[in-house]
Structures are given as structure tokens and as C-alpha cells.
């Protein structure tokens, strides 16, 4: 299907972009790797104005400031693979980037786009939830750019849906630099090692302590309408000394907490099965150091 936009705006500042959004009927395009596929297939995202934000150079890059890591919305997946701050402070992001799409897509795809697309299978969301990230939303209100912060954990409301309003631009993502002893693990499954939409993805993080994790985080993708933090599983894991039997008990909790559906990619049975074996894998990795 061909889509005709009436206007095209290539903004070079957050002010210009948010002003355009305030005028209404605009669709943001960053890397376009979700948007172009969706509009071509179903017309989703079609609007009067196409707003290209890729020329807002302030929105690209990773910074560490006062113990807080900030990632610009336009930071690409490839950037995460090569960034020094990421490697040093949050390597789980690079590990995830390493399982993301293909080189060509990684060069175009942005972190902000991955979040705003709000897919339950969005890969970058998983480690960012493990890291307790917040997103910064900017809008043009009363003649100026105003911002608000939303916990990523409260950002998603359903498949393709989030609390961001139509006039808001996601400008950055930030989280506290994880404490000493933090480990984070990401896992994803599909028949192909590359170019795969996750059937199930899992993220686990925490501070290694006494053969277990404290401040444990467990996150699942593609098992519910949004990526989820598994609170009960986190509680079961908290401070637990990890061995074969205790890992099995955590898996039972995880199994009770997810509610996957059957679709063309996998049955609910298989998704549940993957939740178990992939959680087992990352917990064993943690246990084995």
C-alpha cells in the first residue's frame, strides 16, 4: 500500500519537533525500521505530516553524569554495541544489541523507536526494564518545551500502546549506573540466530551475593500484552542461593506469572516452555559466575 503524506518536516531541534507535533496529525519517523514496514503493510502510522527527527543531533549518544546513564532517543543499536559507557556501565545493553536484527537494521534502528513502537517483543525494552530505566517525554506546551519523566515500567499499556501522548516526543532514557557486583543477562529465542522477532525474551539482573542475587530483576518479553517485570519471580529469587533445586522453584513461580498467547510465531505452550528453559539458562549462568 502506498501512503501519501502532505507535509514533510525534518526538524533539527527538539523545539522544532515538538512544535510540529503540537500542530497535530504528525507521525514521527526515527530509523523508520518499524514505521516503514507497518505503513507499507497496513497503513498504520499514516498521517498528514511526516516528522523526521533524525537531524536532531542532541538526541544521539550515551552520557554518564553523576552516576546516571542517559541514552539519547536517537542512539542506534549499533551505537550501543560500540559505546564505551555502555560497555563499562551496562554491558547487558550491548549483549542485547548483539542479538538484535541484522547489521543493516542496527545501523538505522533507534532505542527511542524500539520503545515507542511498544511491541511486547521489543528487545531493547527488556534490559532497560532490568536497569529500572525512566524515559523523558518532551512536548511544546505554553510556548516552551516541557518535559516529564515516566518509569519505563509504567510506560506501556498494551501492544503498540503507551502513555506517551500524541504531542510528546521521547527524548531520552536514563537509569542509575548499576552498583558494584551487578550482573545482567539477556536471552532470546527463535529458529534463526539473526533477524528474528523474539518468541520469548528474558532479562535477569541483580547484585551477585552469596551464590544468588539481591535487588533481583526479572523481565519477560512476548509473553503478555507488554513486556513485563515478573514481581513474584523477583521476590522468589531475592537472596535465594542458586542451585538446581532452587532454580526449579523459581521457574515454577515464573510459569505461574506469565500469560502468553498462541500466534503464528509460537504456541502458548512453547512460550511457557521457553520461559522456563531460558530463565533456567540465565540463572545457571549467574550461579556459575
Amino acid at each position, binding site marked *: *500500500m*502506498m501512503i*501519501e503524506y502532505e507535509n514533510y518536516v525534518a526538524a533539527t531541534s527538539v523545539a522544532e519537533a515538538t512544535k510540529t507535533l503540537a500542530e497535530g496529525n504528525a507521525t514521527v519517523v526515527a530509523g523508520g525500521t518499524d514505521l516503514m514496514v507497518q505503513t507499507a*503493510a497496513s497503513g498504520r502510522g499514516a498521517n498528514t505530516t511526516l516528522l523526521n527527527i533524525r537531524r536532531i543531533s542532541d538526541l544521539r549518544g550515551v552520557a554518564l553524569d553523576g552516576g546516571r546513564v542517559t541514552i539519547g532517543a536517537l542512539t542506534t543499536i549499533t551505537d550501543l554495541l560500540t559505546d564505551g559507557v555502555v560497555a563499562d556501565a551496562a554491558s547487558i545493553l550491548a549483549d542485547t544489541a548483539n542479538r538484535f536484527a*541484522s547489521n543493516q537494521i542496527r545501523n538505522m534502528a533507534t532505542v527511542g523507536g524500539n520503545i515507542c513502537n511498544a511491541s511486547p517483543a521489543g528487545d531493547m525494552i527488556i534490559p532497560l526494564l532490568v536497569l529500572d530505566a525512566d524515559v523523558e517525554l518532551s512536548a511544546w506546551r505554553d510556548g516552551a518545551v516541557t518535559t516529564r519523566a515516566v518509569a519505563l515500567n509504567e510506560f506501556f499499556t498494551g501492544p503498540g500502546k503507551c502513555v506517551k501522548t500524541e504531542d510528546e516526543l521521547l527524548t531520552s532514557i536514563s537509569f542509575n549506573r548499576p552498583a558494584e557486583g551487578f550482573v545482567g543477562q539477556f536471552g532470546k*529465542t*527463535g*529458529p*534463526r*540466530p*539473526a*533477524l528474528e*522477532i523474539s518468541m520469548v525474551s528474558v532479562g535477569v539482573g541483580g547484585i551477585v551475593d552469596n551464590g544468588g542475587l539481591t535487588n533481583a530483576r526479572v523481565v519477560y518479553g512476548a509473553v503478555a500484552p507488554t513486556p513485563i517485570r515478573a514481581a513474584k519471580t523477583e521476590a522468589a529469587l531475592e537472596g535465594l542461593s542458586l542451585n538446581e533445586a532452587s532454580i526449579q522453584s523459581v521457574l515454577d513461580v515464573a510459569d505461574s506469572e506469565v500469560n502468553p498467547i498462541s500466534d*503464528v*510465531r*509460537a*504456541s502458548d*505452550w*512453547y512460550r511457557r*516452555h*521457553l520461559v522456563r*528453559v*531460558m530463565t*533456567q*539458562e540465565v540463572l545457571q549462568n549467574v550461579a556459575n559466575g
Partner: protein
Amino acid sequence: MSEAIEKTTLIGKSITKPDAPDKSNGRTRYINDMVLPRMLIGKIKRSDRAHAKVLSIDTSKAAAVPGIQAIVTADDTPMVGVGVTKDNPPLKKDIVLSMRDELVAVAGETEEAVDKALALIEIEYEDLPAIFDPAEALEEGAHQMHDDKPGNLSLGYQTVHGDIKQAEKDSDHVLDEVYDVHYVTHVCMGPGCVIADFDTHGKLTMYTQTQYPYNYKMDLAPSLGMHPGDIRVIQPPVGGAFGSKLDVYPFEPIAVFLAKKTRRPVKVIFSREEEFSASPTRQPARFHIRAGVKNDGTLTFRDVDALLNNGSHTSWGATTPFVMMRTFTGHFRVPDVEFRSRAAYTNMPYAGSFRGYGNVQATYVTATVMDKLAEAVNMDPISFRLMNAQKAGEITPQNSKLEECLLGECIETVAEKTNFLEQYNAFKAEQDSPGRYKKGIGIATSFHNAGGAKIHKSDGCGTVIMLDDYARATVITGASEIGQGIDAVLTQIVAEELGIPTENITLVNNDSAIGPWDVGVHASRTTFIAGNSAKRAARKARDQILDAAAQRSNVAADDLDLRGGSVVQNDNGVPVMKIDSLLRKMHFAGEDAELVITHDYYEPPSEPEGDNHVGDISAAYSHGAYVAEVTVDTWTGVVKLNKMTAVQDVGRVVNKLGIEGQMEGGIAFGIGYGLTEEMIIEGGEIKNPNFRDYKVMTAPEAPELEFHFIENDDPDGPFGAKGIAELPTIIPAPAIANAVYNAIGIRFNNPPLTPEKVARAIVDKQAAKVAAE
């Protein structure tokens, strides 16, 4: 005189395909890129019901969209069917039989306008009971799809040899199993496309992706109410065909209807989604096989019932039993065999021809059955196969003459190269020990025609060769180039015969008004048939040149040779004269003037099938033996193919680069068939018509590949060569399935071995074990 020129050969060397540089740097103008002056875009409105009465079609709103030039429905057409049994009218009237059924076609100035118009077409339906399972379609009282096809029966085949009842009594073990093989599709990179253009005399030029330009005219003409002679077929470069362009499909006459109505060229081009949902598939089938063996390992009989889902209409898919049965009856020495197939109409998509043509399906069955039978008599997979492999000179029940049978040599070679038995036994011993990752190794073998297949009145190909005053050759061949590399092979063959460099040869094969007849690209026939024709035409040119040289020198033609652009003395290579100056002398010889223009039509020494499907249908046959080495992740069910070692009887390698490319591409198809590719169809609708959810293999999971070509000149092949194209697609899937069995002790009679299917089987097996304990 200048220095002697040594005798060298191009055969077996690696020659870059002439079209490769343009394709890799983006210069090739594919048919999809073509724009003719005043050209319109045509698109098709398809049914959104699997089976329904069409109560009304309202196109008034669509016609009002600015830029729309024509709208056609069945009422504007002769309603003559296309396809193998002509049961498929290009535009459907009153009844739709599948989701892909074409109802309305629109031509307009822009794609946007046509999209808008399509969305405004209003169609009223009344649903009819839909049938998706072929067994249900054959039940009594099932809804009748086509008035003239009682019982929903499409095509059926049967071949009977010997006495299977007696053979069963003589068997010590009888295997009785059912296999279900699935829907996959060609996934051509260049989606379906055609441009139809009339001249003022009413003659039609078709720019098409067809892979059989000559009979295409004959098949297309009736649906248009035209004479085939008034159609000219131009074949611009295509992005893949693999069998999917071996028939006429409705979008082609539809483009013509629109062009006729608008008096302007019309291009119809598929979206990727249409390429998945409206081009043919590989034929799915349910096989019931019974196979017997004696305790000493001798095969006794095979009895096969195949039920094919014909889908709504009939294309080549329904004829694939023709090839399936050669494998069931002729692969390994089986004295008593019966094969029966029925294709039943349903409201599903329909299958076409697809690289491997039925043998991909049949070999999945035979190669895994061979493994199971070996196990039943406690033999290893290698000795069991060797003991039952035919030897040179044997003849199969359907009369395939295995003059050069190299099956045993293929098996022995692959077993040795992979250290098969040692690995096999070690992995088997590890099956039940703890551990997440399990390794396995498996072998499969195949049997396929490799010297054409006489299914039409002629299996021939024509060639014309012309040499100009500069010793540049133009080779006009009937053989189509659809990416498979025939351009390189023919160039090489002609260069070899004429002693001129390959870059001095221009190949012409894209215009039915210029090229001589050829039956089409199928049956792995082109190197063999077109190669022989080109070689023979070149030989005639060579003889003419050598005669002329003999007349102009003191050397007899028999003592002359053509090398490096010169006529030389055969024994010492000393040049006698340059070919180009000789050609000029021949040309400008006054009353004796002659040009070197030769032609040849080659008909292979094969015979059509007679009663009971008996006949030596191919001029050559080839065997292959491949070994797959896998690692199974028993947690996630992911099967990783680590390595594929392929041993193939090829007669003689002509273009080394070309044959390796054919092997790699064919194996990639086979791996997809075995592991990941599957069209998911629910209620007649394809649920994964995109590259996201239809999983073709990508580069990172490509396994290590090792090829060994067994070269033993075929007496009839050009320079000894046999066909290759389909052969490597046939074996990978069952080799993988046998390797997975070696790793985890589970059989899969229903490819592909997706992670979910494998994981589920492992969990079920563990549960059964626990329950038993």
C-alpha cells in the same frame, strides 16, 4: 611462423556468470524496474473468502477515482482457463474457490490511484462450506468444487510392478507409516511481474518472467482468444523463478485484458504479500508408505499411497507424482513396488512446479524410511544402503536405465569423508546421557533425472551460432536464463569448441521472435540439452572453419585445431592462420563467399512414458549422498546444522563456480524445507505472508559446506556433463532429520523440524519415559 599454442581446456574451470557484475553493482534492469512510455499500473482484487458465491460486484466508486483507466471483470473476458488442466479462468465469475481467486482488475496511472480504487470495490458474497483437507474433499457428499470434476478428483497416477502381496509375505519386517509434508514457496527476490503491450496491428508483446517462452505462447493464447503466433515473448532479467514461472498464471492474461481495454502497456507487479499468497507453492502431500525388508537386509517391496492437496485450481503441483514415483520405484533395488496418487480439489492455495519437483517430498520419505529399515534389521545406515544400491547397468521397474550408476560410490565417499560410522555410533551412545546439547549425524541419498525428462512431445532445444568478421560469436539459444547460469555454461562450451575467448561470445536468449524453440527451464535439463545443442552447432561452425582453413593451407582439416583465436596444427600447436582473418577471407571471396552461420536442434535419446508409466524418460540419471551434522538444543528445540557434506554424481563439471553456486543455493532451499520454512495456512488464508514470519535461512546459520563431485563422463552429456540444478534441493531435509534422530532418538514424519516441534517431541518423550518408570 609464430609460437606454438598449447592445447588447454575451459571445461571444469570457474567462469564468472556474464550477468554477475551488473547484478552485484545494481546496474541490471530487472523486469520489475521496466517502464514503457504511457505504461499503466494494473492490480488485482482477490477474494477474501475461501469458498463463496459472488452475489454482486460494484465497481462504480472505484471507477470514479481520478487516474483509473480501466476495470475488468470476468464478463469482459473469454472465460477460458489457464494452467495444466485449464481449470483456472483468469478472472472468476459467480464462485470463488480460494482466497487468492482473482475477481476484478484495475488499471490506472499510478499505484496510489489503483490502490484507492481497489479499496472502493464492493463485493457481496454468500459463504459456501469450505474444505481444506484433501481427505475430506474426497468423502462422499463433499461439496463439489468444479462441475466437471466428480468427487473433487483432480489428477491421479498409478504404477504397479511385481506382486507386493507375495513380497510382503516374504518380508521379515514391514514398516507402515504416514508422512505429512508441508507447504513452502519459492520466495523469489523479484516478485511476480508482467507487462503486456499491443501494437496497432493487434499483435501482443509480453515482457514476462516465464521460464518456458515457447510453449508459454501456446498456453496463454486460448485464455486471450488469440493465436499463439501473434504473441511475442520478451524475457528481461528476473529475480529468480525456481519453477514458479513454468505455467501461465492468472495475473498474466489479466495484464493483457487491461492492456487491450486501455490500448496502453500495462504492468502488473506483485507486492511481497501477493508473492507469498498468489504465486504457486510446493506441493504438499500425505504419504502412506509400507515397506518391507528381509533379516539379511534385502529390500522386498514398497507400497505408497499419496494424497495431494490440489488446492482450488490445477498447476504443475498436481503432476509431481510423475517424479515422486521414479524415486519410490527406482531409488535402491526394490523388486516389487506400487505407487498410487490422487490429488483432491480443496479451497486451499495451489502448487506449481518447484525445484526438485516432487522429489523433495518423496526423498524425505524414502531417505528416512531407509534409515528406519536399517535399524529394524540391526544394520548400520551405510552398509544397509550399500547392500541395496543398484550397480551400473541395472534397470529400475519403470525402466530408468542406470548405465553409469554411481550410487554406491557416492555413499562410500561421503561415509569416508565424514568418518560417518564412528561419529554415528558415538552420538548414538550419548543419546540418553545427561546434557543439554546433543550431536547427531545423518545420511540421505537421492535419485533424479539429469538428462532432461521427456514429458512433452519434444525435450529439445535449438541453437544458432553466427561468427562475424572479427571472430566474435553470437550464440542464439532457446534456453532461458533465469539466474541458473546457463549463459556462462553455453559461452564456455562454444568457446571450447571454437578456440576463442569467452569474452568474444554474445549470448542472445530473451526474445521468442529470435531464438529457436526450447521446451523450457525445468527438469535440470538445460546444461545437458541446451549444452548439447550449442556444442553441436559450434561443432558445425568449427568444421566449416577447419574445412576453409584446409583449403587455404596444405594441412588436412583433420590435422587442424582451433586454439587461442588461431587455426593451428593439431600435433604441434603451430599456428597456420588467425581465425578472424580466415573468416574475412571466407566472407569476401566473391562468388564463393560464405558466412559461418550454423544451427542445431538437439533431441535427447530419451523416451516418453508408456503404459504403467514405464519408459526411459531421461537421457541420464544422477545419484547423490549427503551427510548432515547437527547439534540439537534439547531445551529450546533449536536444531543447528553444523555441516553438510555433499557427494554428487555430476558426469563432468563444466563451470566449477556455477555448479558450486547451484549446490549452495539448492542446499539452502533444502535446509529451509527441513528446518524452518512453512506457510502457515488457516481457513485457507496464509498467515505468514512475509519474511518476518516465513523463515528462510539467513547467512549466519548457513552451515559449513563440503562438496565432492564424482566425475565419470556421461556418454551423452556435453563434455560428459549431467544436469545439476534440482538435485541439491532434494537431499538436505531428510539428511537433517536422520541426524536429529541420531542425536535425540526422535523421528519426525512432518517437516519442518521447527524449534517448537522438536521441543514438544522431546518433552513428550521425557514424559512418556517418566510415566513408564
